[in-house]
């Protein structure tokens, strides 16, 4: 069965760029979704499982760290792999968001190779 992907970022342009980079990485997803905020992402995640979520951290309304915490309370997200995609690169923040339930971290600027390296092991 094909995998599903959700991209969470308040910038529509960045969502398109991430989608393009995922395609360039060679990773294939049968279903893709987008959300413009942590709140919208949680609403979508409540309706059914998603295999992989790529989530920005620095967003208005609800930031990515809060979204991860709340997503981990949802029964539909038990097996979801959540990867943070952010310009933030401080070790403390990365440790904190991993402790909150994220499965990985990709810093911007990124390359297709970086997506391949971080996502491929989680998809097998």
């Amino acid at each position, binding site marked *: 069965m094909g995998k599903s992907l959700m991209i969470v970022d308040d910038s529509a342009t960045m969502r398109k760029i991430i989608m393009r980079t995922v395609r360039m990485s060679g990773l294939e997803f049968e279903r893709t979704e987008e959300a413009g905020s942590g709140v919208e992402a949680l609403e979508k995640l409540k309706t059914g499982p998603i295999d992989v979520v790529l989530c920005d951290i620095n967003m208005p309304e609800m930031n990515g760290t809060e979204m991860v915490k709340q997503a981990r309370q949802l029964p539909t997200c038990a097996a979801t792999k959540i990867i943070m995609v952010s310009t933030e690169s401080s070790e403390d923040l990365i440790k904190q968001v991993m402790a909150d339930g994220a499965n990985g971290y990709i810093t911007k*600027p990124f390359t297709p190779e970086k997506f391949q390296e971080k996502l491929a092991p989680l998809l097998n």
Partner: protein
Amino acid sequence: MITTVSLKDALLDSAREVFETMVFMALEGLEDDTTNLGDPTLLGSITFKGNLEGCLGVCCDEACARTIAANMLGMTSLEELTDNDVSDAMGEIANMVMGAVKARIQNEVGSIEVSIPSVVQGRELRNSLGEGAVQVKIRVNIEEQYRGEFSLQYREGRPNDVP
């Protein structure tokens, strides 16, 4: 304390990294360039607070901004671009360059928190922090076709400030 020389290097290296990785355009620093960037220009800005507080800006003319956005999105035709795509792309450039600068200086200056980027369009745009601020500015040649400017204005901040 961090010097303007090391900040200038961090700013140029960060801008180069972002352009090579995400925009797929070569970027070179220009010495003593004071030519007009063209009108109208777009200015993407992002503020930061913490041990250092201030604002990072990236500025270029509309034609350059549209090419940057098209390259980031992998579009072959500029006509497909919306104004929102162009504005968003400039904001993301400011965001990513700020993130790359922060990664380069955080061992020296410690904690910095970054805001959400904003973009404005107009004539002779520039950020200003007022008196007491230090400014680092670099002019760049983008793909030997466009001129752009990256600026960083800052002063020592109060550690517990949040944007």
